[in-house]
């Protein structure tokens, strides 16, 4: 089981801020494929990965990173702090 978090317009498009999932994926990209296949709203949210960022256990990571041992994955658009 893995916690998946969504922020900003990713959260709005998918319609929820977080969910707990069972996944067979071994990489972030694999997880994205599973999500895209679930429902149209996921496919819409993950249509363009270049517009997305990912954090693994609250650290910025990349889509080809392995998921082994990861408890929390977060997807969000490029940050706009400051």
């Amino acid at each position, binding site marked *: 089981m893995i916690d998946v978090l969504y*922020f900003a317009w990713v959260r709005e498009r998918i319609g929820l801020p977080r969910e707990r999932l069972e996944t067979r994926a071994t990489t972030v990209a694999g997880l994205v494929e599973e999500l895209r296949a679930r429902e149209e709203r996921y496919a819409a949210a993950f249509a363009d990965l270049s517009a997305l960022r990912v*954090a693994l256990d*609250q*650290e910025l990571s990349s889509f080809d990173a392995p998921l082994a041992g990861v408890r929390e994955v977060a997807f969000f658009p*490029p*940050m*706009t*702090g*400051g």
Partner: protein
Amino acid sequence: MRVAVQSGAFDLGVEVSAFSAAVPGAGAVVSFTGLVRDEGGRLSAMEIEHYPGMTETAIAGMVAEAVRRWSLVDALVIHRHGRLAPGEAIMMVATAASHRGDAFAAAEFLMDYLKSRAPFWKKEIGADGAEWVAAKDSDEDALKRW
């Protein structure tokens, strides 16, 4: 070194004053404050979403990196989240050093990283709807100088 991520307002004057009074030996204090622009009246509010937990860790990491790179006496970051009105202070950074070069560089470094690497997302609420602020290429480019 203090990092605060909060929904409540902060008093810029009080913070800058307290910060600069508590840096014995420092000769230079720089502060940066980001305010909600009113965009010529088109903006009625700004909503700032963040990633609780990661936000604090990410900012603390930036402050630690600034301390590694420059000779700092102290540094402070306060960043708000939630709904803010035009004119309100979104965030502030303060740095103190013996010399102005270190204080300025560290403040600019922290700002550049906060812009693009701290997990905040801004949404502008206007008369004609709400829109997520898009990240700017220029902000990403700004990181390359460090």
